[in-house]
């Protein structure tokens, strides 16, 4: 038996048991997840932790209803019990459900995927990793007023083994890495925070090269200085301005106002009680002018360094690329097998589970705004009176994803094409399609970057997803600014 076949026996037993109990289809996903976190806070190592979690989750389909049961133990008794529990859950749901919404996937794969890695983090001595964070965090305190400094590294290594009753056997070795800094300045009756490189740090799939790309030692002095300066910076004005959003804020804008509303389960009401529904209704597909012609948004789960990049999703569908918005027009959704069939399409592999003990569901994966052709500096050129904003601080959007208000850590005036003085507490607001239709320029490929988010929440039980929204900075005309302080 090869190492990939370590779970062959257990998987066979789980699937056989589920079928014997009455499942018309079943799949089982074994996972071993290792997470390492180091965090330095004010010169003290607040976290130096290493965690391993292993277990499996089995999904069973009975009469159009799904059941899912997960267990940490891998012995025969536990496997039999979990398979039987999954079938019992499916049967209980089928007994009271008024509709049949589940159906078995049709395409099986036998394959292997490994995240491309330039340098395995395991080759970097732990002492060196701690030393890097201690030094980066120390540099934050060189600026005045910094009351809290934080520096961190996260390393997530997940081995997945997926089997299904239609013959899939997929092994995936996924490595995701992240690092970041936070400087909190307190004074003048105020609290101001800067994070680096983006508002959550830098998170991508890959190895130690991601931590190196974060360049913590280079960024620390600048963001600490900015946090300190913000305590004395003027308040961002309220009014209507042209707005230029930096890349990491564009990632958040995409995430909240396109990524979530384009989840087809949400469109179909499956998230209605919690995360909400969507204004991107199925009848609007191919018709709705979501944004301007400058706006093309794709799902691409093959993206280099994307947090959601993998070979197959957690239903066993192969990763690919598909349109969500093509030149401003709504063109597609993030889909699972069940939801795609409901609209006559095929899944685009957007199903993920947080870990072995969570049911797979539609998650925002890599959802990217394709680059335009305007150099970053060019975004400023014909802005007479505007605000440039960077790095998210506050984010809120209604439960159909229309009315949004976002705040950034830092802003600058833009007067007659030039970046001017620093502004604190910049916020802006709008209605999603109006806002995206006001986008008249997207930065070019040189400013395009795969910004990862490690903590996207959805579902009940609540699941955390790892997602990327690659974007360049972009420009929007006549935006409502300052609303967060207008109450």
């Amino acid at each position, binding site marked *: 038996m090869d190492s990939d076949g370590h779970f062959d026996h257990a998987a066979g037993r789980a699937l056989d048991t589920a079928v014997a109990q009455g499942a018309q289809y079943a799949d089982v996903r074994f996972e071993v997840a290792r997470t390492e976190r180091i965090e330095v806070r004010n010169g003290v190592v607040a976290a*130096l932790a*290493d965690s391993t979690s292993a277990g499996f989750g089995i999904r069973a389909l009975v009469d159009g209803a*799904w059941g899912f049961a997960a267990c*940490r133990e891998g012995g025969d008794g536990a496997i039999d*019990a979990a398979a039987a529990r999954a079938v019992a859950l*499916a049967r209980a749901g089928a007994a009271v459900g008024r509709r049949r919404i589940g159906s078995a996937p049709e395409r099986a794969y036998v394959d292997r995927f490994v995240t491309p890695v330039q340098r395995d983090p395991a080759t970097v001595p732990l002492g060196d990793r701690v030393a890097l964070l201690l030094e980066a965090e120390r540099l934050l305190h060189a600026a005045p007023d910094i009351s809290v400094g934080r520096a961190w590294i996260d390393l997530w290594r997940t081995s997945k083994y997926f089997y299904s009753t239609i013959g899939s056997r997929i092994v995936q070795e996924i490595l995701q890495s992240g690092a970041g800094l936070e400087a909190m300045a307190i004074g003048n009756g105020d*609290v101001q925070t800067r994070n680096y490189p983006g508002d959550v740090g830098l998170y991508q799939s890959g190895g130690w090269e991601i931590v190196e790309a974060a360049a913590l030692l280079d960024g620390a002095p600048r963001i600490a200085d900015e946090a300190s300066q913000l305590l004395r910076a003027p308040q961002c004005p309220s009014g209507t301005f042209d707005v230029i959003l930096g890349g990491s804020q564009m990632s958040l804008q995409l995430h909240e106002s396109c990524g979530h509303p384009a989840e087809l389960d949400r469109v179909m009401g*499956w998230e209605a009680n919690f995360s909400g529904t969507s204004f991107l209704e199925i009848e609007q597909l191919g018709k709705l002018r979501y944004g301007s012609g400058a706006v093309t948004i794709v799902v691409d789960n093959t993206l280099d360094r994307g947090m959601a990049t993998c070979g197959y999703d957690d239903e066993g569908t192969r990763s690919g690329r598909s349109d969500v918005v093509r030149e401003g027009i709504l063109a597609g959704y993030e889909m699972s097998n069940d939801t795609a069939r409901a609209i006559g399409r095929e899944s685009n592999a957007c199903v993920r589970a947080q870990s072995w003990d969570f049911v797979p569901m539609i998650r925002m994966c890599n959802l990217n705004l394709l680059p335009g052709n305007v150099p970053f500096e060019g975004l400023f050129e014909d802005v007479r009176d505007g605000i440039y904003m960077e790095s998210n601080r506050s984010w*809120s959007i209604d439960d159909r994803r229309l009315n949004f208000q976002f705040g950034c850590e830092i802003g600058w005036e833009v007067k007659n094409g030039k970046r001017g003085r620093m502004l604190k507490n910049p916020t802006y607001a709008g209605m999603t399609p109006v806002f995206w239709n006001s986008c008249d320029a997207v930065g070019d490929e040189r400013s395009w970057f795969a910004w990862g988010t490690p903590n996207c929440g959805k579902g*009940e039980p609540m699941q955390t997803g790892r997602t990327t929204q690659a974007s360049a900075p972009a420009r929007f005309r006549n935006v409502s600014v300052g609303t967060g302080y207008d109450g």
Partner: protein
Amino acid sequence: MDRLILTATDRERIAQRALALSRADQTEVLVSTADAALMRFTHETSNQNVASSDAGISVRAIVDGRTGVAQTNRFDDEALAGVVSRAADLAALAPRDPLQGTLPAGAPAAAPPGAYDAATARMGADARAAMCDTIFGEAERTGCWSAGFAATSSSGLTVANTAGALASFDGTDASVNVKMNGADSTGFAEAYAAAAGVIDASAVARTAAEKARASAGPRAVDPGEWTVILEPAAFGELFIYLSDHFSAQSYDDGSSFCSEGLDRRYFSENVSVYDDYSHPLAPGMPFDFEGYPTQRLTLVENGVVRNIVTDSYYARKLDRPNTGHALPAPNSYGPQPRNVAVAGGSKPLAQLIAETSRGLLVTRLWYVRPVDRKRAILTGMTRDGTFLVENGQIAHGVRNLRFNASLLDALRACEFSQEQRRTGSYHYSLVVPAAKIAGFGFTSTTDF
């Protein structure tokens, strides 16, 4: 057999095995177990019916003031030896923290009555499905479609350390959450309890359906300053953002609203807030994640902030008593309140509404986020049942609005209902009354 819960005896045995393996100066072991199940539904159909069983061990090793933490969810001899030695290995790499002192020895801490219900721990898929079926029936009777869930869980935690602490707790939880969807309106209701048997799923569904009916044909109102009456689910969504301000860490680093000092008046006289693990609506764990007994604390007394919560580290750092509010190590959040309860007022909710000449009654909020930490300015949307109140009567439903308001200001201009409810979400559980707040700022509306 479908549940794999570890009993307190099992957990204590595992913890003692791990402690015996450790060669660190000090060692703390957390052994946890949980079995949780939830049926989620939409359009009167189950779209998720899930259950999971897990258990884990977390070992904190302290060697010469250096700390490392390792975790696993395996308990065989090799795994236990590995997790204990890994924690010590990690500790050796950390710099010495001069404030890292002796782990607390712990003391007896009795679980509050009603925290564990055996019937809830045993509840099966058919029983949860039956609760959902009741909700589906109400949706069909009222011409709505429903979305929500019915959930039950049991969990246990044992904390043991080399200073002699040994504490175990087992609890159960049950919840029903219903959103009823009409043609152009929605309504929401929820119920939480340690025992599933006290939850009336039918009543929850009726309340949600009635809100959807009453808010049909919503009309737009202008944003601006309004008197609002936030029902418990809505007020809880706001108040949870104040919880961290009572952490000794926030107090110490200056980011809390009360960092200027305790025993000062920050709110109006009718605001009193407690951290009470024994509240009958939300009985919880009587000790913290260091195994130290959790104190029942008055955080705010008639508008005056009296206490912050500490753990052993911040008790030492600030020379304050340890209140038993440690989170699991490692964390960078510091000690946190875990069982916040806002005291009720003197009038029933119906009277607060009846005394309102013009205002908005809000069922629920959504996507609340801080805009300004120090001033506790929060933004968010109303959701699932927002009503205009005129001359003491609910006039009609209104389209949803976005607010931007300071919670500190709100607590200086508020009164509370007599009734308290447990409310919550994935990240919190609170006991709160409804709150009537003057001058609450709305800045925009939305299309529904």
